[in-house]
């Protein structure tokens, strides 16, 4: 059983695409769509990697990241932030809040696959 990746994202098509790519590469992909309940999901299932969208319904990805980094059980999990806004200030914000990596949509599948491999195996 491959390591667990938690994908927190609200766009169904993107969920499907990333799930497909990572499953094929051998990872177990869990998905969650709602920002408000994302932390509960994270605590109940500490994953090996979190892929976190910035614009989520209910709660922003940055807020979730802040909580995640300050919670004992989750603070060491590598986090890859996803954003469609692609602005520098989002990148800075992500870095300040302790994101491991930051990726702008649209991305290439190979890029996602390689990054996930690196982050989990590092």
């Amino acid at each position, binding site marked *: 059983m491959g390591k667990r990746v938690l994908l927190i994202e609200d766009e169904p*098509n*993107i969920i499907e*695409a990333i799930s*497909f*790519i990572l499953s094929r590469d051998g990872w177990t992909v869990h998905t969650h769509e709602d920002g408000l309940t994302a932390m509960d999901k994270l605590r109940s299932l500490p994953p090996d990697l979190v892929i976190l969208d910035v614009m989520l319904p209910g709660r922003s990805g940055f807020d979730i990241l802040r909580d995640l980094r300050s919670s004992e059980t989750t603070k060491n999990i590598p986090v890859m932030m996803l954003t*469609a806004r692609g602005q520098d200030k989002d990148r800075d914000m992500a870095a300040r809040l302790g994101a491991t990596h930051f990726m702008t*949509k*649209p991305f290439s599948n190979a890029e996602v696959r390689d990054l996930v491999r690196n982050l989990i195996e590092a």
Partner: protein
Amino acid sequence: MLTFNLLVAVALVYVAGLFVVAFLAERQAASGHARWLKSPLIYTLSLSIYCTAWTFYGAVGYAARSGLEFVTIYLGPTLVMIGWWAMLRRLVRVGREQRITSIADLISSRFGKSTQLGVIVTLICLVAGTPYVALQLQSVTLSFAIFAQDAGTVWQAGDLNAAAGWVAFGLAVFTVLFGTRNLDANERHHGIVMAIAVEAVVKLVALVAVGVFVVWGIGGGPSTIMQSIEASPIELWDQSGGRWATLIFLSAAAFICLPRMFQVLVVENADERHLRVASWAFPLYLLLMSLFVVPIAVVGLDLLPAGSNPDLFVLTLPLSQGREGLAMLSFLGGFSSATSMVIVATIAMATMVSNNIIVPIWLHRFKQPSAVFSGDVREVILLSRRISIACVLALGFIYYRVSGGGTSLAAIGLVSFAGVVQILPVMLGGLFWRGATRIGAGLGLSIGLTVWLWTLFLPSFGAGAIIPTAVLENGPFGLGWLRPQALFGIEGIDPLIHCVMWSMLLNSLFFVSGSLLSFPLPLERLQGAQFVNVLDRGTSASPWTVADAGAEDLLVMVQRILGSDEAQAIFQKEAERQGKTGYLPEVTTQFIEQLEKRLSGSVGAATAHAMIGQMTGGSGVRVEDLIAVADEAAQILEYSNRLEAKSAEQERTARALRQANEKLKALSIQKDAFLSQISHELRTPMTSIRSFSEILGDTDVAADARERYAQIIQDEAVRLTRLLDDLLDLAVLENGQVTLNKQSGIMRDLIDRAVQASGAQSGDLAVLREPLAEEVPITTDLDRLVQVFINLIANARKYCDRPEPKLRIVVSERDFAYHIDFVDNGSGISPQNQQVIFEKFSRITDQGKAGGAGLGLAICREIMHRLGGDVSYLPGQYGTAFRVVVPKT
């Protein structure tokens, strides 16, 4: 036999002696050792220029012709000196405080520095004074002629004229030499005053000597003289009360109005306390001068051949008795009377002409403001005074030549008196009445001058000389009431009384009514207060010294302005410099000047000067100072007003800039948010498209998955296209570039089209309509309106959260518009979101379900605004409700 040459030699030696006296006095005054020069005695003696050759010679002639009437000439000044010296004190105080240089200056200064008034007064003085100067020339010339006659030569007219010319020239030289040595009118003419005092003594001694000789030498003692007087025709003279009163009034008024009297009374006054001595000493002098007039006249009439000129009895009596030494003394007395009067009168008139006529013209021409202290202007003023002196004497000489020296001395004197007293109403009004104005003064003076010229001065040349006899008898242009000697038809009065009565009456009338009917300028008001209240401030008018100012008082004042630290530093430094301990230095002139400079840096030069003047005492604050202070204050006020206005303007600008900045910031934030929204809306579908197309490129994808992924790619591409369409639509609408295509149609058709296009007929949304209400015509851009309807119906389809969604469309008609309500049976929109939904990219529900970019309602609102209507959320409908308002046409 006294040779004529000896007489001339004596006269020249006498004049040379006066030169020496004047010169020494000037030197003494300059070295500051001349306290005695400023004694009340000298002041009193200098007043004696009132007694001119007219008094010296003419009084006897007057007495011989008109009896005791001559006494009025002495009574007037006596009454003024004794009875009204308080008025004189006021005059002297004003003169001192306002630095008055002449009577013209006084009047002009009182009425707000009016140049015109100064010119009018100068003209009056000049016209009235010139005959008087001529009179003196005549008397000196006649006395020379007497001696020439005594020596055996009878002078012809040519000789007389030549003598008069030489006398005028000599007097001009003397006056120029001693009258224009100093420029500043404040520095008095010590030399001249001294010379006048000497001459006053000479003429008194001479007249008394002649009188004593006549009474005891010829007349045989007082008792015999009394008998002769009673026997003489002088007794028979009927004294007219009107004439007496008029003459006393004239001489009293002339005493204060004559330019030369003003000069010695006010300008040359060194100390106002001298008036107290003069108030009894000068009447005493007049008494002595008049004591022997009647005896000389009576004895002269007795002893001398009939037809001899009584005006010259003072000379001819001693000569007829062979008393040549006494005659010489008498000649010197008359000479003194004439010269002293001419010198002072000339100085006074020259100052007026120069200050009130020449210098203003010069300054006006060369536009040199406040030039008094620059060197070349000083030269100009001196030159103008010298020329004025020459001109005044030349005028006197010309008058002498024109009048032919025929009129009796006393008559000329009275004509002059009547002229200068025209100044009296304005002068007294100026001193006592604050309501007196420039206009009133100008009117009074002009009318007075005109009446005097018309009724007395011009006729005095004799009938037909200047005024034709016909005019004299019938009035100008046949206007009888304007006859010079019978104004308004009142005939039979003595011409002098006639003139004085009418001129004073009309003068005062116009002065008072002109003043009452006009408003004074601010400067006039100030000057009026200064003049009228001059005695209210302080009593001391003694010359001030810097020592009057206490160092402590100065320190207090300076502290108030400069602050205590700085003020104490200045005083301490000065004290150290002077080698004193402590804070308080000796108050020296230099220190005062230094302080004034320091203060003027803070409060302005005029204010500083006024303050220091106030502190050092005595000088008072001149009105010019006050005006300058007011000017400075006004400037400062204006400056601060400008600053205030500027800072207010700056504040406004700053506020506008701040607002603009905030607006720009807000716009910038909006733009960032908008861009970031668009970025998100575009990248999201593109992410799916890219990702799935890569997956499709891989070989190991199952066929059914392949088909599914292709469908996703297609959906997302459609979504992208729709987004781009919406964006473009919105951009066009917002820029106002949209062109409306107005058409007429029926509302029902439009709603039909919208329901069809929105796909509501597919069955997932029940649309409830009221066909009858929809049967209304509408003229608008039908396609755009349908676009709005489609959007609203599609929204209901997308967002209505009921299992059996229903949409009710209700059309209602208003006066000028239709209301089309779209109400579904969903759960509605919370109040806080009812406005948000019309903003771009606002989506309050899960966006995946919505499938739009959140631009729909924003576009709808834009469209409706373009169509002149609106779309808004309609609360309180148990569901989501929108109301479209559209104008009927």
